[in-house]
């Protein structure tokens, strides 16, 4: 039987087991929306802005092991989606974006709502396709899913011209796909793994530095076992939080710009550093020249060879799927007679513990007069028993959430780490809530970020998504204000948020519950009330201290040991 291109596209999504897609209709995707209407396997979530469609698909993917799917129209549909696509690309999130395109015969004629979707997204996708023949749709979508989730994951765009989606052809879904120029790696080289283990066992001051790759590879269990067997200190990057349990005594917190003192110092002064699914990001190691001044051996395990030796020199590179490589490493460790030297480990832990004391832990001066943002996150952690899915936007609130919410499980912390996209949190939370129905989902945000996609409160109403919005409202673009205070002579150029809406009324206008919290003593009761309302979206507008800063801090361009503690200022 012959099907139209649009029907084929939807059938392909069914074949891939897609339960939800996020999108927004328009002229170029009318045939696809028509095909969507005539079936009930793939459920469509109508967002209020295409950026939110992609973020929602992203949150859906991050909090599960599924590929997120978004559907947008041509022209402004795809340009609005670009921020979402770039966000997913920077954090290696598996996603398929289907965009409509003007009819193939009109391409290049500056047709209504025409934009070169493949060209405009090229730098921020793992790969993209323009479908030129209806016969290619099924294979292209199959390839898109395969590319999105294999190897180093990432977003893949499939651009389908309107006439192609309306033409008919025989349909069969390919059972397998082979791309001759693309061969994702599996196991790591066993000789390299033996070398790595030997280096680890002989280390006097070893350090485990694990990133988002561990979460993406589903290798948290392997990482945890390895760290515990070796007895080494472990740090997780912003993207890796939850990859190793945060409440474990071997966990030293997050490293980098707003990491703990002990994590920064241990990264700087270890003699063997094993990087696992992490990429020595500028926000993690700061100034690379400063980092290189202290001699240390580096073992780097990653699925993407281009992540290895990009910013720092690496002594033992291991390319492979992290889960498989860590299993290989564990296998070698089990059969090895050698163990880490106990007295070296004791000396090293003594040093790490001294740093813990000197750093004084994550701390802030609480107040009975004004709400401290860190206090809100601490209470959020307590009230949700540390078991919520927490999405965040970008800025100070993101750092406080990363610092004060202790993630013990992977895929619970959902944030835009690489691109740093304000407006990510709320739509991402929608995707998280849909794939985890019944789960507690909190969106930690600020009054700046939330307004970048606040229209999604409408989507939440339509699809009954009981997200808890924890807005730390300090009337400032807090992180910008912090940098202006430290590095721009207190000149708060355009970082003040004047004329803010009444968020309680706004939440109510969208049909939700809004609570404004002014006093520290009301923080806990408000959170309790909000999380007890299982069926409602509750928007909590916490009026927080506008002068609070995020500490510790490694200023931009500085080295890890130049970390500033709260009392240094």
């Amino acid at each position, binding site marked *: 039987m012959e099907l139209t291109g649009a029907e084929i596209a939807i059938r392909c999504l069914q074949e891939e087991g897609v339960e939800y897609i996020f999108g927004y209709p328009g002229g170029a995707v009318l045939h696809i929306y028509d095909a969507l209407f005539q079936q009930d396997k793939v459920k469509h979530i109508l967002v209020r802005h295409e950026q939110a469609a992609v973020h929602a698909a992203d949150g859906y993917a991050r909090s599960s092991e599924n590929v997120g799917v978004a559907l947008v129209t041509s022209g402004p549909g795809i340009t609005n989606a670009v921020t979402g696509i770039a966000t997913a690309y920077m954090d290696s999130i598996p996603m398929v974006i289907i965009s409509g395109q003007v009819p193939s015969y009109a391409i290049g004629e500056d047709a209504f709502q025409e934009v070169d979707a493949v060209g405009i997204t090229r730098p921020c996708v*793992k790969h993209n396709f323009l479908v030129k023949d209806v016969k290619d749709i099924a294979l292209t979508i199959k390839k898109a899913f395969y590319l999105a989730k294999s190897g180093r994951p990432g977003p893949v765009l499939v651009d389908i011209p309107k006439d192609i989606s309306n033409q008919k052809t025989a349909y069969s879904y390919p059972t397998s796909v082979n791309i001759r*120029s693309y061969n994702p790696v599996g196991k790591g080289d066993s000789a390299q793994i033996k070398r790595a283990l030997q280096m680890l066992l002989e280390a006097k001051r070893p350090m485990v530095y694990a990133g988002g790759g561990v979460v993406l590879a589903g290798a948290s269990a392997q990482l945890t076992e390895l760290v515990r067997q070796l007895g080494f200190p472990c740090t997780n990057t912003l993207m890796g939080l939850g990859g190793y349990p945060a409440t474990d005594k071997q966990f030293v917190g997050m490293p980098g710009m707003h990491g703990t003192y002990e994590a920064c110092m241990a990264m700087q002064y270890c003699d063997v550093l094993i990087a696992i699914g992490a990429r020595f990001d500028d926000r993690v190691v700061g100034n690379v020249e400063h980092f290189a001044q202290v001699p240390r051996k580096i073992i780097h395990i990653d699925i993407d060879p*281009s992540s290895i*030796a990009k910013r720092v020199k690496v002594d033992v590179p291991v390319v492979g799927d992290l889960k498989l490589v860590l299993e290989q490493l564990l296998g070698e460790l089990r059969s090895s007679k050698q163990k880490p030297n106990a007295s070296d480990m004791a000396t090293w832990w003594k040093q790490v513990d001294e740093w813990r004391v000197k750093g004084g832990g994550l701390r802030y001066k609480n107040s009975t007069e004004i709400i401290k943002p860190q206090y809100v996150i601490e209470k959020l952690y307590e009230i949700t028993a540390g078991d919520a899915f927490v999405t965040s936007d970008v800025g100070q609130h993101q750092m406080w959430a990363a610092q004060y919410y202790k993630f013990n499980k992977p895929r619970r912390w959902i944030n835009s780490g690489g691109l740093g996209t304000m407006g990510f949190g709320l739509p991402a939370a929608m995707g998280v809530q849909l794939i985890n129905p019944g789960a507690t989902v909190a969106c930690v945000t600020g009054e700046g970020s939330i307004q970048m996609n606040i229209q999604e409160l409408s989507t939440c109403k339509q699809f009954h998504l009981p997200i808890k919005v924890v807005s730390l409202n300090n009337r400032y673009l807090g992180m910008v204000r912090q940098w202006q205070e430290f590095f721009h002579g207190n000149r708060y150029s355009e970082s003040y948020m004047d004329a803010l809406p009444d968020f309680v009324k706004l939440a109510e206008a969208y049909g939700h519950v809004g609570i404004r919290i002014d006093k520290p003593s009301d923080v806990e009761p408000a959170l309790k009330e909000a999380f007890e309302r299982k069926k409602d979206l509750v928007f909590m507008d916490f009026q927080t201290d506008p002068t609070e800063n995020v500490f510790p801090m490694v200023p931009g361009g500085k080295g890890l040991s130049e970390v500033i503690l709260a009392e240094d200022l």
Partner: protein
Amino acid sequence: MRHIISLLMENEAGALSRVAGLFSARGYNIESLAVAPTEDPTLSRMTIVTSGSDAVIEQINKQLNKLIDVAAVMDLSEGEHLERELMLVKVRAEGVVCDELKRVTKNFHGRVIDESNSTCTIELTDTCAKLDEFLQAIDRKLILETVRTGASGIGRGERILKL
């Protein structure tokens, strides 16, 4: 250091812009880029002349390999290889000048492929450096046009880049 990188990629629309876009997005140099389909029309062979530190060249190779359409990458300059570039030069040439030009062309193993009353067009195929030398050897003021293809490269002997 100057490197000549050869690659095989899917002969598809947009493949060239993926490579060119990679170089501009990541700030790598391109001195020249030459591309055309191979004997297998589904594959294109590209030769890129670039320069950079060892670390940059390593990243260029890795990033090229990462492109989905790129099937194979070889840094020709890591081993024995040949490079050739085609150049066409049109020169203002009358009388004695023309004779002198023909003499230089012959020395460089080039040939005259077009002549008019006032111009002479020369074809030359050699290494990039040799073509530069030729341009130095003739009177620069007389050059009307220079067209160069950019280098194409191939490994010597059993050094083969094939799928």
